[in-house]
C-alpha cells in the first residue's frame, strides 16, 4: 500500500464514522486548532476545557503561557490597571537587518508595543506597580524598551513607596539589539538595588519560560521569588548544555520544582491561588505606621 492510499483509507473510515441518520459525529468535525496539546505531558485536551481551567493542563498541572493582558485580568482588581510608557517603541541600535520591519509586524499582530506591560494597579485594594512580560512578542526577549519600561516602573515604585510585582517570562537578552540589550540587565538590576536600599518590596513571579539574561538579572533578585508549577526556569539553554555534556538531560531539569529543590525559588504557587497569595504577602510587608493610617481613614 502506498502512503497516499493509507490516508485515503483513513479518510474513508473517518467519513464512514457517521450516525445512523448520516450526519457526521461531532468528534470528527473538530479541527486541531480547538485542541490543546500539553508541551510537558503531551496530553490533549479540548481548548474550552483547558481555558476554563485557567490554561492549566488538567492532566499534569502544567501552567501554560498567558498573554500579558490575560495575566493582568486574572491578577489585578477590575479596572485598576493604568499603563506606563505605552507609547515607547524600540529603535535599531546596531542596525540589524530586518529588525524594524519585524517589530512593525509584531506590533500589528499582537497589539503590543514591545514584550512587557508595566503600570500601577491594585490587588485586593493594595496599591502596587506591576510588570508583566508577554512571550508572544519575540519570546519576551529584553531589549531597550523592555529594559527601560521595567527600570522606570521600579523607579516609580521606589519613589512612591509601592511594592513591585514582576511576572517574568523571557528567552533572555534580545540578540538583535546587541550589547545594548546586555546593558539592560545592569540597568534593571540597578533599579532593583535602589528599590532595596529604599526598603521597597519586590516579588518576582517566574512564569514559562524564564531564562537567559532575565534569569541572570532582575528575575532572580526578588525579595520573594515565586514560580508557577512546572515552568521552565534556567540560565543556559537546554540544548546548549546537552551539547556541552554530550548527554540527554532529565525532563524535570530546569523546572520550577528543580529550582525549588536547589534553593533558588521560595515557593511554587498555582495560578488559581496566585492573586490571594500575592495580596497576603503584600499585606504582611506593610509597615505598622502605614497600617494605622489606613485604619484611621
Amino acid at each position, binding site marked *: 500500500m502506498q502512503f497516499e492510499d493509507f490516508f485515503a483509507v483513513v479518510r474513508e473510515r473517518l467519513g464512514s464514522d457517521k450516525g445512523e441518520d448520516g450526519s457526521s459525529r461531532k468528534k470528527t468535525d473538530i479541527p486541531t486548532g480547538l485542541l490543546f496539546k500539553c508541551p510537558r505531558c503531551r496530553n490533549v485536551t479540548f481548548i474550552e476545557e483547558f481555558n476554563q481551567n485557567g490554561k492549566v493542563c488538567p492532566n499534569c498541572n502544567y501552567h501554560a503561557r498567558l498573554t500579558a493582558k490575560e495575566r493582568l485580568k486574572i491578577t489585578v482588581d477590575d479596572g485598576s490597571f493604568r499603563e506606563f510608557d505605552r507609547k515607547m517603541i524600540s529603535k535599531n541600535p546596531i542596525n540589524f537587518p530586518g529588525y524594524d520591519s519585524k517589530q512593525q509586524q509584531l506590533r500589528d499582530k499582537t497589539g503590543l508595543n514591545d514584550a512587557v506591560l508595566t503600570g500601577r494597579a491594585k490587588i485586593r485594594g493594595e496599591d502596587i506597580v506591576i510588570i508583566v512580560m508577554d512571550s508572544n512578542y519575540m519570546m519576551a526577549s529584553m531589549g531597550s524598551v523592555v529594559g527601560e519600561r521595567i527600570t522606570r516602573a521600579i523607579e516609580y515604585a521606589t519613589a512612591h513607596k509601592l511594592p513591585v510585582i514582576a511576572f517574568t517570562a523571557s528567552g533572555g537578552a534580545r540578540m538583535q539589539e546587541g550589547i545594548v540589550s546586555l546593558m539592560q540587565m*545592569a540597568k534593571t538590576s540597578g533599579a532593583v538595588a535602589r528599590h532595596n536600599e529604599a526598603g521597597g518590596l519586590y516579588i518576582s513571579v517566574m512564569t514559562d519560560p524564564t531564562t537567559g539574561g532575565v534569569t541572570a538579572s*532582575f528575575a532572580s533578585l526578588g525579595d520573594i521569588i515565586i514560580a508557577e508549577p512546572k515552568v521552565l526556569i534556567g540560565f543556559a539553554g537546554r540544548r*546548549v548544555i546537552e551539547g556541552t555534556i554530550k548527554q540527554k538531560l532529565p525532563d524535570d531539569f530546569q523546572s520550577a520544582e528543580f529550582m525549588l529543590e536547589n534553593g533558588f525559588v521560595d515557593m511554587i504557587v498555582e495560578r488559581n491561588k496566585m492573586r490571594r497569595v500575592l495580596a497576603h504577602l503584600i499585606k504582611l510587608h506593610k509597615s505598622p505606621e502605614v497600617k494605622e493610617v489606613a485604619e484611621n481613614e
Partner: protein
Amino acid sequence: MNEQLSASRRLDIIRHKGRPTALDYIPMIFDEFFEMHGDRLCGDDRAIIGGVASFMGTPVTVIAEVKGRDLEENQECNFGMPHPEGYRKALRLARQAEKFHRPVICLVDTPGAYPGVEAEKRGQGEAIARNIMEFMTLKTPVISIILGEGGSGGALALAVCDELAMLENALYSVISPKGFASILWKDASREREACDIMKITAEDLVRLKVCDHIIPEADGGAHNDPTQTAENISAFISESLQNLQRKFQKGLDEMINSRYNKFRVVGDFEEFPHSDTTQGECLAENSSNV
C-alpha cells in the same frame, strides 16, 4: 592603533595562541599579589582568580577571569568559563575591598558563564544577577578592563563599574558570535559574518556609550609585545584611579549615582508625545477575579 580592522579579524587576534592572559598580566602590572581562594559557600572556581595586591604602592583588589595558555591550564580553568562559585568568590572579594576601602580592578576575559548541569543546580543565573546588582552599589571604585573576549552575562558580572576599558582588539558582546549565528540564522558556521554585524569592537562600544577607554595593544596584537601592552594597561589604571579620585572628592554617593547613570542611559527607543502615566488604558475590565 589600527581602527580599520574588522571584528572578525580581531577575533583571530584574540584567539591567537600566544595572546597574553590575566596570568601573564597580573605579575607585570601588580606587586605582591596574594591570591585568595574560595566563595566560603561551596568551592573554589579556577576560572576566576582574585586577591589583594599593590598597584604602584596603592593596595587594590584584583579579580580576573582566567583563560589557559595551554591544554593543561585550560582544563584547570575550564577555558575561562566560570561556575557560580567563581562569581560568588568575586563578590566576596569585592565586599572585602569595600570594607578596607580598596579599589577593585576586574580583568574580564571569558567566552561566557559555563553552561553545565552543576552550574545550573548551583544557580548560575542568580550568581550573575547578584553580582550585577551588588557591584552597582559597591562603595568603592571599580575599574573593569576587557582583555580579550567579553562574552555575555558571564562578562557583565565583572563589568558593572565606574570606568570600562577595552584592549584595542578585545570584543564585548551580548552572546558569542557563534551563538548569535546559530540562534538567529540556525547556522553556527556563519560566525565571522555575525561578528562583523554585531557591533562588538572597542570602537563600536565607545560609539554605543558602553566602553569609556580603548587601551592600545602592541603592533599587530598584544602577543607581539606583552610587556608593552601591560605597560599600557598600567598607565590606564593609574590615570583612571586618579580621575575617579578627583571626580568624586565629594564622596562615594556621587560616584555610585554616576555608576548607576552610566548604565541607566543605555537604550535606543523613541516615545510619542503624551505617553505619561495618567493616560493609560484600563485593560482589566469585566474580569471576574476574586
